[in-house]
């Protein structure tokens, strides 16, 4: 027994350095039995926060405080198109914005279900890991940049470079999308019910872009692919789930994929290959 006690002491005394290490590996802290910043919430517990006169930092802290108290449904009033609202939420949460967001709204989120009754500015839901974001109005440029997972839905139009560098998840655009949509995308799916501007899928490595209308022009190494029945079914269900009123039937969508002409990975070392694709 004496030996075991000694072992435990040694574990606690372990000298970890670096900011993240200190945050994540404080063994005495209760919250470390779950993910960092994750709290048990009750979706029936509802609260609202008025954003009037508040800056992004204050609001984001208020959301965190509410999560700690176990609120699972939060309504944000008067967001006033401010920047960086609702970023870094790593929880299951029903979040409703009663208004528009500015740049970089909902960046780096993991888990919440968000509804925005307005529009969003540049780089909404950048680097989202999972969850669902629904925007009732239009979205700005770089919509869902570097998206890694989850569903990102805009019922109106999206701006230029929608889904730039995306690595997973699904982006659904109810209206049109701007130039360079799917620029350098590596994985995931983009669905655009309307038309797409010039240079769609430029330098895409992988992933699929479904277009209901017409792309103005295709970028480097983006080619049209063939739809199969499985994809049509998936598309139909996805659009239905997103509650998008799409005039084009799923079977009439066009599919665009990477031509794989830019794939030079075989010349790389396996380790480098893993780094690029992972």
């Amino acid at each position, binding site marked *: 027994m004496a030996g075991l006690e000694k072992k435990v002491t040694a574990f606690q005394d372990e000298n970890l350095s670096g900011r993240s290490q200190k945050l994540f590996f404080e063994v005495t802290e209760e919250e470390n039995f779950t993910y960092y910043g994750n709290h048990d919430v009750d979706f029936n517990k509802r609260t609202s926060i008025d954003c009037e006169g508040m800056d992004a930092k204050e609001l984001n802290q208020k959301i965190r405080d509410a999560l700690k108290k176990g609120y699972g449904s939060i309504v944000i009033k008067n967001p*006033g*198109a401010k*920047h960086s609202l609702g970023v870094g939420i790593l929880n299951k949460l029903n979040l409703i914005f009663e208004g*528009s967001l*500015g740049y970089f709204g909902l960046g780096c989120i993991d888990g919440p279900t968000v509804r925005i*009754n307005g529009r969003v500015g540049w780089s909404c839901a950048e680097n989202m890991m999972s969850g669902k974001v629904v925007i009732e109005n239009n979205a700005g440029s770089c919509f869902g940049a570097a998206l890694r997972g989850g569903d990102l839905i805009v019922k109106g139009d999206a*701006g*230029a470079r929608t889904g730039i560098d995306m690595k997973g998840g699904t982006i659904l655009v109810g209206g049109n999308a701007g130039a360079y949509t799917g620029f350098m995308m590596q994985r995931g799916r983009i669905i655009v019910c309307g038309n797409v501007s010039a240079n769609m899928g430029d330098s895409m490595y992988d992933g699929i872009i479904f277009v209901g209308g017409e792309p103005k022009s295709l970028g480097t190494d983006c080619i049209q692919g063939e739809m199969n029945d499985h994809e049509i079914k998936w598309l139909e269900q996805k659009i239905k789930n997103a509650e998008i009123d799409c005039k084009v039937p799923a079977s009439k969508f066009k599919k665009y994929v990477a031509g794989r002409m830019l794939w030079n990975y075989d010349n790389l070392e396996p380790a480098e290959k893993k780094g690029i694709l992972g």
Partner: protein
Amino acid sequence: MKKHGAKILKQSSSTPYAFRYEFTYKSDDLEALAKDIETVQNTEILSIGKGLELIKDLGDATKVADQYGLNKFMGTHGIGHTRMATESDVDIKSAHPYWAFPYQDVAVVHNGQLTNYWGNRRILERNGYRFNSNCDSEIIAVYIADKMSKGINLEKAMNDSLDELDGVFTYIVSTKDQLGMAKDHMAAKPMVIYESKDIVACASEEVAIRNIFPHEITTYDPYEAEVKVWQV
């Protein structure tokens, strides 16, 4: 001034170095008049016109607006800009909006960077235009003024600029009775537009427009290579 039949009607000054004159003139050659005014030592004209008035100064928007009493200013349309200096000095002449000496009533604010500035500037200089600063944004004002002095309308001039000016840009032009915006082929720079029955508002960020409209509004981003002109 007498040579041109000019008569000063009103004179005011908001700062020790900025003067505003209202005057009438009889001469046909406004350029000669402008040049003669600038023969007065240490004088530089920021703008001459029948409809627009330009204000440039250093400091944040609130400070400059207070200094020049902008909140009391009445008019049909206005443009403004706070510059983050990258290409040229931080001084009054490099501040936006830009005017094209001596073309009347044109003002431009620009977000972005033009990559064929020097080449275009030399061409325009050979055609007799004068540049007051080394800031790339100034070329847009001179370019538009050059086109309009040849009888090309604002919308066409702005459409031409999309192909003839290289780089990334979103700019707004104001003339006596028109307001226009243009965005480059890459849509690299932001712009948000709100249009209603009686008002048009454009800004880089929606939050700026929301200072005027505290309630929820429907706005949109123009797409790449888009030109819009509104008539006052």
